[in-house]
């Protein structure tokens, strides 16, 4: 590889960074025949200075693009440096980074040059080469190019652990305004095809063990937050729809980073909506791990998330009649709904209460956040003294105890429960 590769890498990593997904989990590809690599629990090999996990070599094959999506740095009307990797360069970078334990694998996306099939074909060729010529068993995430043929998508699925198409703009009107050359149908079609093929492969595998893997880590998508005046309800509603209909593994939320002085978009210098993004991730967790329905948290008449408190606390304060919860008796599902109790603590409570009735001191040791939970529980030796309080009083108490954490907010996705 030549010095020119340095320049290409700078351009094509920079252009890929707005895709926030960097997950390398959900697949269990084993090392085959003493080859290179395996895929297990995702490891973050470093973190960017904005605190995001770096797990994959995330690059574009090229930032040339025939489309002109307003929110994208690679849009054809943008006057920027363009570059394109060769197939071999991407393969060499991936292998050499991987051997040094820099990365878990490759996340390859691309601008659309010439046409969708031409682009997709190259993405597939890289994945195929890694798997077949280098016996590479690390993680591969490929972008599905909307409009690519089913044959190519199928082939991509044979080599990739994950495929994704980014929805980017969840509302039809927003998409019309910002990316008039695109439509949601065009994105839904391949998602539908991939979902069906995943299910079919799973069925076949039950009968014929040697059935080759097909997208073992499933599909994901991303929505941009704050570019098209969409509401939180629209975002979460869309997310739930995609989780349910297409069985997506993950939906990512990416606070819009102003990159253009296009008047259809937030002006340059506008702050990235990071607190909002964080609240959306928390809501997403409630859907996936806490057994909430989107409509319990938001609805068309209440379309916005509280920014000052997390969505679970917000739900609890609106539903005080469901509390207090008795720690020693409540179902696992109800424990999950108590502010201050996360999935791990709820499981620990269920395991530990078999030994003895739990008291506050035990809860402290289990690690639940009592400063929040104390308003919502009873346990051995602890009577609920706050239930009679108004919800906004409780909110006020909780906020005054932990100011910095709530007001600042971070892009961390799971810490605040």
């Amino acid at each position, binding site marked *: 590889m030549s010095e020119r590769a340095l320049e290409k890498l700078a351009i094509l990593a920079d252009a890929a960074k707005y895709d926030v997904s960097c997950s390398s989990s959900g697949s269990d590809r084993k090392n085959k025949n003493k080859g290179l690599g395996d895929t297990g629990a995702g490891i973050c090999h470093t973190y960017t200075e904005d605190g995001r996990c770096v797990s994959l070599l995330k690059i574009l094959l090229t930032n040339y693009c025939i489309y002109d999506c307003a929110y994208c740095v690679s849009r054809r009307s943008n006057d920027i440096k363009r570059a394109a990797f060769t197939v071999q360069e991407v393969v060499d970078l991936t292998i050499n980074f991987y051997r040094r334990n820099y990365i878990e694998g490759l996340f390859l996306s691309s601008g659309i040059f010439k046409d969708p099939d031409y682009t997709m074909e190259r993405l597939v060729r890289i994945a195929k080469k890694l798997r077949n010529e280098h016996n590479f068993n690390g993680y591969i995430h490929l972008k599905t190019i909307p409009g690519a043929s089913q044959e190519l998508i199928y082939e991509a699925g044979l080599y990739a652990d994950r495929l994704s198409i980014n929805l980017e703009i969840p509302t039809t009107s927003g998409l019309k305004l910002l990316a008039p050359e695109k439509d949601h149908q065009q994105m839904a079609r391949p998602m539908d095809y991939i979902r069906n093929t995943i299910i079919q492969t799973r069925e076949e595998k039950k009968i014929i063990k040697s059935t080759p893997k097909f997208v073992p880590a499933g599909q994901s998508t991303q929505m941009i937050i704050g570019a098209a005046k969409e509401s939180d309800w629209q975002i979460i509603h869309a997310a739930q729809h995609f989780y349910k209909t297409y069985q997506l593994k993950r939906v990512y939320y990416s606070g819009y980073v102003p990159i253009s002085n296009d008047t259809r978009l937030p002006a340059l210098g506008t702050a990235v909506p*990071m607190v909002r993004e964080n609240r959306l991730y928390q809501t997403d967790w409630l859907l996936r791990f806490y057994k909430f329905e989107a409509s319990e948290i938001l609805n068309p008449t209440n379309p916005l998330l509280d920014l000052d408190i997390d969505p679970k606390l917000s739900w609890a304060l609106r539903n005080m009649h469901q509390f207090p919860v008795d720690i020693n008796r409540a179902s696992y599902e109800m424990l999950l709904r108590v502010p201050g109790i996360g999935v791990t603590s709820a499981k620990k409570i269920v395991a530990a209460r078999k030994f003895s009735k739990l008291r506050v001191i035990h809860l402290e040791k289990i690690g639940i956040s009592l400063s929040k939970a104390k308003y919502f529980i009873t346990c051995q030796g602890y009577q609920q003294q706050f239930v009679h309080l108004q919800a906004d009083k409780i909110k006020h108490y909780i906020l005054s105890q932990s100011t910095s954490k709530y007001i600042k907010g971070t892009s961390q996705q799971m810490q605040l429960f």
Partner: protein
Amino acid sequence: MECKVLEYDGSWYGLLTLIFEVYEYKYEVSAIINHQRAELQSDFFAQNARITTNQQKAERVMKGLKAKTGAQGLTELYEAYLSEIKGVEMLILKAVQYYFSLQQAGHKNYAHPQIIEIKKIVKSVSRERHRMKAFVRFQRLSDGIYFALVEPDFNVLPLIVKHFKERYADQQWIIYDGKRNYGISYDLHEVNEVIFGEEDVMVNQKSIANGWHEEEAFYGKLWNLYFKSVNIKERKNTKLHMQHVPKRYWKYLNEKL
């Protein structure tokens, strides 16, 4: 009953033998001394009982524990032992005594003081193990070996052997613990312990760099550049960054140098 100070050789099997003998001779234990790390010469304490490591006794304890508390409970004790934290042997002994006094699997009792303590240590050890999986940076040497130097807080190399062996099955590698002065080395077949004596040179970053493969500098540069290019400056969050990559690990990470 007489209160005893017990000495063992610092090995895991040594500690298990010690536990066996506590039951065998009904010792009341006042302290456990790791002979390898003992500061005072032990014949100073003539009344100390010196434990001679005995594989059979150790294995019987393992078997008993497994039956009592499952493989997970046993693994937890082993990981706690690797922490090398002062007093951890005593804690492990107490936990074992608690387990053997119970009818059901005791490692799930998250409210018992010694078990909580063990869990806490296990958590730190496991975090360190995870960090090693993440922050080991191999540098390719001219003889083809991929070499990494680390200085983990706890003795976690035994816990990462499997991971690296499975992942890098087709390349020779060495991960060296500069703090404890031993390493693990994979020769395409198996993993062995290595210790570099005085005449060996590969002990610090500088001497490693002297042995670099011709491509090493280039790939290091590419990685550095990659790290810089993926940053979104509009989202800068130094606090979060430091939380994920504590400063003491920066010395391994070529992108932070």
